[in-house]
Every structure is written in structure tokens, then in C-alpha cells.
């Protein structure tokens, strides 16, 4: 049997909506098989993965916290990827955003006032944008491929942070352990509903960013430019759009948002600078961007789904006693099904019996 695809005349609205559910259905089936094979009760296992993290308010808070940086970064990356610029180094921009935003709280801890936090967030965005400007500059000026430069700069940023936190910026009262002083209340993002859980205003920022990006990409000339340059660079040039300018702008936007993700993680959750800030949000956000089909609203949904799969994996580790590896395998399977189901939006799938086989039977 062979599988053949036939392109639909227009992309299917029906399957745009249905495909996530098909993916979910397939994942559930695969999950039942996988967990049964591991000797677990599949219903319990799937419950831990998909339902348990949503049953308690605190856990929903945690879900929002986990999704916030993913969404922030992925929105920026969708703009960047739509314009055909390949920023793979959001993780590094996140780190540099956190570093730049921490300058005030660490070097001038005595500052107070409502403007301090705003300044911190802006500096964080500037830090991420500046770090992202390097690959864009190299691409424009020297034609150096941005995949390599942005990726390599991730490692450089992480080592730079490491050097700061273990050296100059370590907490004077911290027994020389690698962490900065703790930020004061003026320097941290407040919690939205402090009585019910720790979700902070970073989540609100992420929602605003999603909305602005949705508006910009869908309704404005700038958004149109991005897409034209991304899909048909030659047409873009004829229309008078500058690809170089677009590269710089796309990198600055995605860098600034990654920087914002970094500094909101620092000011919202961790509340000090330390050697590890992100468990790879910058890389996971690449998946989120594509799962969300490079559409800001899609990114929001995808960010929540990926966050849920992290939390679900953790819940399953505890309630089922499985290892983290099983969780990761299941996450991989889920992603595969989601990606595969999206095919249905643009194509009809036909199963064709190969002629040889039919001759035999």
C-alpha cells in the first residue's frame, strides 16, 4: 500500500479545526498501547498526562507560568520565520535579556518606584534585541548564515551569564555561591491573583504581545510585507520592500520578545539571577511557533499544549512512578501526531494499493 497526497484547492477550514482533535485521538490510541506495554493502567496514565494538571488551581497557575515564556518567544519567532529568517538562537537572546534586565536590580538595588520595573523590562527587551542584532548584522553585512551565528551565540551567552553570576554579580551575602542578590518588591513582577497561586503579570504581557502580533501580521501593511518577503523575496523586491531591513527588524522583534521572556522569568518567578534560567525555552519555542502554524493565536494554543505536556509528564512521574524518559517519549509521540495531522489541512490523503500487491491477491 502506498500513501499519496493530493493538494486541496483551498486549505480546508474543517480540518484546520479538526486536525488537533485527530492528533489528540491518535495520541490517545498510541498512549493506550504504549502504557499498556509498560504494564500501566492506560486510563490512569492518560489522566495524569492530560487532566491532572488542570484539576487544581495552583497547577493551572503553573501551567500559565510554564507557557508564558514559550508563547512570548514563539510569537517573535513566528514573525521571524514568516519573513524567512532563521533565528535558532532565541535561548541566547533570552539569557542576554535576563542579564541586561538584571543590571539595575543587581547594581542599584536601592532603587524604588513604579518606573523601576518598567525600566527593567525595557532593558531586558533591549538586551535580547541587541544579542539578536548580531546575527542579523552578520547576515546583512557579510552574508553569514544566521542559523549558525544565532545558534553559536546561545553558548556564548550562557557562558557569559555563568561568568557574571559566579564572579562579579554574585550575592555578597551568599557565601560565594553562584547566585545574585534577591530582587526587591519594586524589581519583581507582581502576581496576578496572589491568593490563588503564583502566576505573574508576565502572562498578561504575553497575551498583549499575542494580540499585537495578531493585529500586526493580519491587518497591517508591515505584516503583509513580512509575509511577501518570506514567501516570495523577488516579488517583495519589486514591491520595493527591503529584505535587509526586514531581516534586521525580524531579528530585533524576536530578540526583544525572547529578552522579555528572560527578564519576566527572572522578575516574575526566580527573583534573582542564577546560572540556569531557562530549561531550553528558546528551543522549545521553535516547536511552538510551528505547531501554532506561525500564527500568533495558534502559538498561544500551542504554547499551552506544550506546557501541559511538560506538566503532565511530571504529574505522571509522581502518580505512576514512571521515569522522565517515558514522559519525554510520549511528548515526542504527541508532537509527531500533531505535526502529521496538520497535513490534512492542505492535502487529501489517499491510500493506494500498489499494483503488485493487488496482482498477488
Amino acid at each position: 500500500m502506498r500513501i499519496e497526497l493530493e493538494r486541496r484547492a483551498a486549505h480546508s477550514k474543517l480540518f484546520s479545526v479538526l486536525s488537533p482533535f485527530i492528533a489528540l485521538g491518535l495520541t490517545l490510541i498510541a498512549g493506550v498501547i504504549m502504557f499498556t506495554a509498560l504494564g500501566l493502567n492506560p486510563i490512569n496514565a492518560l489522566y495524569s498526562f492530560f487532566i491532572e494538571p488542570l484539576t487544581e488551581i495552583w497547577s493551572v497557575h503553573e501551567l500559565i507560568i510554564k507557557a508564558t515564556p514559550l508563547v512570548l518567544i514563539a510569537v517573535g519567532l513566528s514573525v521571524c520565520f514568516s519573513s524567512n529568517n532563521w533565528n535558532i538562537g532565541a535561548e541566547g537572546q533570552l539569557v542576554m535579556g535576563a542579564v541586561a534586565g538584571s543590571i539595575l536590580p543587581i547594581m542599584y538595588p536601592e532603587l524604588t518606584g513604579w518606573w523601576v520595573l518598567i525600566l527593567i523590562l525595557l532593558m531586558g527587551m533591549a538586551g535580547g534585541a541587541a544579542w539578536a542584532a548580531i546575527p542579523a548584522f552578520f547576515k546583512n553585512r557579510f552574508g553569514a548564515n544566521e542559523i549558525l551565528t544565532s545558534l553559536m551565540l546561545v553558548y556564548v551567552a550562557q557562558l557569559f551569564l555563568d561568568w557574571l553570576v559566579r564572579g562579579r554579580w554574585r550575592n555578597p551575602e551568599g557565601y560565594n555561591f553562584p547566585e545574585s542578590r534577591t530582587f526587591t518588591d519594586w524589581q519583581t513582577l507582581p502576581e496576578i491573583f496572589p491568593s490563588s497561586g503564583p502566576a505573574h503579570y508576565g502572562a498578561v504581557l504575553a497575551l498583549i504581545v499575542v494580540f499585537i502580533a495578531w493585529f500586526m501580521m493580519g491587518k497591517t501593511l508591515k505584516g503583509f510585507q513580512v509575509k511577501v518577503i518570506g514567501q516570495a523575496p523577488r516579488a517583495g523586491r519589486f514591491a520595493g520592500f527591503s529584505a535587509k531591513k526586514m531581516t534586521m527588524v525580524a531579528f530585533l522583534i524576536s530578540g526583544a520578545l525572547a529578552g522579555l521572556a528572560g527578564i519576566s522569568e527572572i522578575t516574575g518567578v526566580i527573583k534573582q539571577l542564577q546560572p540556569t534560567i531557562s530549561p531550553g525555552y528558546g528551543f522549545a519555542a521553535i516547536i511552538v511557533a510551528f505547531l501554532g502554524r506561525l500564527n500568533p493565536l495558534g502559538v498561544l494554543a500551542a504554547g499551552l499544549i506544550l506546557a501541559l505536556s511538560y506538566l503532565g509528564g511530571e504529574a505522571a512521574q509522581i502518580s505512576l512512578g514512571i521515569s522522565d524518559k517515558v514522559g519525554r517519549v510520549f511528548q515526542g509521540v504527541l508532537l509527531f501526531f500533531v505535526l502529521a495531522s496538520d497535513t490534512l489541512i492542505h492535502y487529501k490523503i489517499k491510500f493506494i494499493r500498489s499494483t503488485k500487491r493487488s496482482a498477488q491477491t
Partner: protein
Amino acid sequence: MKKTTSMIAAIGLSVAMVASFTPSVMAAKDKTKACFVYIGPTGDFGWTYQHDVGRKAVEAALGVETAYLENVPESADAARAIERFARSGCSIIFTTSFGYMDATNKVAKKFPDVKFEHATGYKRESPNVSTYSSKFYEGRYVLGQIAAKMSKTGVAGYIASFPIPEVVRGINAFTLGAQSINPDFKLKVVWVNTWFDPGKESDAAKTLIDQGVDILTQHTDSTAPMQVAAERGILAFGQASDMIKFGPKTQMTSIIDNWDDYYIERVKAVMDGTWTSTDTWGGMDEELVHMAPITNVPDDVKAMGEATIAKIKSGEFKPFTGPITKQDGTEWLKAGEVAEVGTLLGMNFYVKGVDDKLPE
């Protein structure tokens, strides 16, 4: 929402009370659950692996239920992982990496009925938090002595992870041990800036050997340096676990992180209701540091090593005892003076004879 939290707390409290009034020890046993948060995978054969050995020892010795979360990053995820444990009915939670310090204390405040044990940190902000750590440096002093006896070149190589006090203490203790045998002994340090990357550790080991060291020791987690030493035919010391399988003719001894006894003792204290907040910084005397059998050395060296171990274990000798000079030539400890705990805890300077510079 506050209501729910207090309700949960109330239920938790009443459960605890019922448990404490139940005469049968077995019933209490059933309720106790020991939980562990790990920084790495249980399959790293180093730091996390040894903690997991401890967890299994608790299960075997006390028959209690245990659970673990592995690969928990020291980011926002740490607090969530710890809180999930606290909510899932754990009676005691061991958080086994320094970076979990603030997360542990934060969650501990919310769950006063759950006991928290944080490894290698110093903050105990509420009465249900304990800290514990090992004086691995005691073992490193012994390694230094053996190294100085066995080295022909008078130079040993040290593969270091990150410049934190724990690692600096180890480097200093090793140097002091070596200098007690050979005052001119030199130590070369290479920082790999990772706890765990077998390839990079192996590169560092080769580099050090090429630079003329004939003894290797490491403060990183993989067995790669031991294998390189075996291949190049020099001697080495293991780390975290007994690595003799990786260098049957190479390993002279190994510092073994032994968490078994401590974990069993603490979980048992929870079962008995005798648990209190403590700050444990134990070494060989409290069985937190074990040494693998001394092998591949002449009998007199073995005897010397064992004698030092015995002296440290009995408390007769402390590795950081003066006279000790700092790297810059200033005096740190006068003859007979023993280092203060605070200075050791935050150690960020080298003693004389270390060929390296600490980052400022």
C-alpha cells in the same frame, strides 16, 4: 482559595495527628512517603545516581513508599516540582541540588507539615527545612596524600566543574594533602564548565596528561577521565561512586557519596516523629563520605592512606589545620589553628601551590 489551602492543611494536620496516635508502627510506615528531586538523570552514574542509590536504600530498609523526579532544571520548574510533591502526599522531600535552595524554602513555608531537606545549601527559613551536605574535602585530602606518594612528576591534574566553594575546597584539600607529603607538589586545574559531559571531561583528561601530569582526579560526574587514565596508563581517583570497573588497574581509591545512612536516618525520624530542623555537614565520621578500597598502590602507601582516613574519621585530624598559606602568600591559618566553618562554607581562595587563578 485561601480556604481550600487551609482546608488541605487542616486535613493534612488531622491525618498527621491520627497517624501519630496510631499505636502500630506499621500504620505510620504506610503513610510515610519519601520524595526526591534530582538535577540530572538517574543514569548519570555520578551525583544523581548516588542519590537514587540512597532512595532505594530507604525503600529497602524502611519499606516506605518513595518517588522521584529527575532532570528537574534549577529554573522556575524547581518550585513547581517540589510543590507537586508536597501536594501529592510526601512526608519528606529531599531536594538534591544547590540551585533548589530558594524554591525549597519558598514551598516549605506553604506546607508546614511536610519536611524538607535541601542538599548543599545554607538557608533554613522555616522550622520544617533542614540542610545537609558532605565534607567531600576530607576524602580529597587523602587523595592528595596518595597522589604525592605515587606521582613521579610531582604534578597532578584536576578536572574541575564550576568555581563554587565546594569545588574550591576540594582543590585546596587535595593540594594540602599532597604538600603534607611533598611540599613542592603542584596541581594543574582545568575548568570544563559543566558537571557532566563525558566527551569534554575526556578531552580535559587527555590535555592534562599531555601537559605532564601523571595522576588524575576530577570533580565532574562521568567516568570518562578514569577511562582515559586507564588508556594512557596513569593512575587516577574516582568520583561520586566506585569507578573501579572503569579502571581496574587505574583507580587508587574513590570518594563515594554515601547518602544511604543519612536518608534512612532522616526518613526514620519522620516516621518516629522525632524529626527536627538540622544543619548537617558531615564527613567520614557520619558515614556521608566513604572511600573505595585503596588499590593499585604499594602496601606502605595504602597503610598511610588508611591511617589518615582513620584519623579523620575519629576527629583526631582536620584537613584544614594550620599552618596554611594562601596562594597570594598571606597567612590564612596559624600553626594548629583549625578553619572556621563559615570560611570553609564560602571558600573562594586557593592555598599556595595551586597553579590556577580563581575567577573574580
